[in-house]
């Protein structure tokens, strides 16, 4: 039985943004051969799965509704079944899973399912969020579709499609993407063709090296560059701390965020220097009010031992987050056990 940790990447993007076309080309690349694909289609008649050429036993279509709102349990069950078939050698051996969402899906609940379902947690790790954006219509879609904004805001990689048709629209779109998510590298797909290594190397866990790459995962914003986004409601920023954080302070901090911000924490990810665990940093990850239990790295990935937490939020100010962490840390430090 093969019980490796398997990364799950989420391929999202608004309707018509080229997700399926890109996935079809990716599946033709040797690096992508050992990939199981789950396609979520919205509507009575699914077509996307017809456009994907993959071995039948590693392609699953979820047709009962939109992943984000109806079938989270279906997704967990599907993943669980897929793992069982793999463990029992009843399907082609895969070492990566890609979930293609419907164009109208909010990726946040899907991320939450991956983080919280007990039947799959421990076997699967988030491999990153890849968002396709149509270079022709993308700027207008971002202007009018809240779901599109969210799909871009939570992305680890953004892939532009239909660039050959975009003309001047490309520069406008790039500015908008910079405003919504400056931390995510923007790649280009040529009629769906793109190097899979560029697209799906965005997660915390790299299946090629079987190691974690926290710095790549946290991306640019973790290095202290706060970004104001075009939509004044959505902001990305990083909290950086030189001093270690007490374990209980981190717990209280995350609980307070979940309690008071709830759905307005679109995404949170970070590496934290825990006072009680100086040599093994904690990797934290949250989507809206759901936080994954910390994962403990075996060692620091670099000499940089600062705590760095990236926030993508809606109407949650950096000032409040900063003072919340500082005040909790000071209060905890005043406890007899820490004095």
């Amino acid at each position, binding site marked *: 039985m093969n019980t490796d940790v398997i990364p799950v990447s989420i391929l999202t993007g608004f309707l018509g943004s080229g997700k399926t076309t890109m996935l079809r080309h990716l599946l033709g690349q040797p690096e992508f051969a050992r990939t199981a694909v789950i396609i979520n289609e919205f509507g009575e008649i699914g077509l996307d799965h017809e456009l994907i050429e993959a071995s039948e036993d590693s392609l699953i279509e979820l047709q009962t509704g939109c992943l984000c709102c109806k079938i989270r349990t279906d997704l967990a069950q599907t993943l669980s079944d897929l793992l069982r078939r793999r463990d029992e050698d009843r399907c082609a051996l895969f070492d990566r899973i890609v979930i293609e969402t419907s164009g109208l899906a909010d990726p946040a609940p899907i991320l939450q399912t991956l983080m919280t379902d007990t039947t799959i947690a421990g076997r699967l790790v988030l491999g990153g969020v890849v968002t396709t954006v149509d270079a022709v219509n993308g700027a207008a879609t971002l202007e009018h579709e809240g779901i599109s904004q969210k799909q871009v805001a939570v992305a680890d990689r953004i892939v532009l499609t239909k660039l050959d048709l975009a003309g001047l629209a490309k520069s406008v779109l790039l500015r908008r993407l910079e405003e919504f998510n400056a931390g995510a590298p923007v790649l280009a797909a040529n009629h769906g063709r793109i190097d899979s290594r560029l697209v799906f190397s965005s997660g915390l866990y790299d299946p090629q090296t079987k190691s974690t790459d926290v710095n790549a995962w946290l991306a640019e914003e973790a290095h202290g560059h706060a970004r104001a986004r075009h939509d004044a409601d959505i902001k990305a920023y990083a909290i950086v701390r030189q001093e270690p954080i007490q374990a209980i302070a981190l717990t*209280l901090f995350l609980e307070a965020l979940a309690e008071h911000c709830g759905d307005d924490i679109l995404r949170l990810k970070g590496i934290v220097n825990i006072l009680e665990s100086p040599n093994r940093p*904690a990797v934290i990850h949250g989507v809206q009010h759901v936080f994954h239990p910390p994962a403990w790295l075996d060692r620091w990935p670099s000499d940089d031992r600062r705590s760095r937490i990236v926030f993508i939020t809606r109407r949650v100010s950096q*000032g*409040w987050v900063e003072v919340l962490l500082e005040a*909790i840390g000071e*209060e905890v430090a005043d406890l007899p056990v820490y004095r």
Partner: protein
Amino acid sequence: MSWAPNDLARELLAQSLIAWRVAGSVERASDGALVIGGIRKDIRIDRAQPHLMFRWMVTVDGRKRGAVSLVAVLRQVREALDPGYAANRVRIAVAPLVPSQ
């Protein structure tokens, strides 16, 4: 930590009002307590007496309740300001705070 609520606690409350979109202000009373003004309730935050199990006392319209932490203070203040506020306080999993060696 000094006896009266410190400036960081005051700053946290002030920033929290902004975050919650409550038009109020946090002032310091002559005895050092923090008082939230500009709202329809009287809210006052004191440090609890040392012999009590609480660290803070939150008084809302004369009713005094203990709070074990600043996080609990925030919860009580927000509940007082927003009766419809339903805190997300479900916590199910018990996970180690530090890694097992």
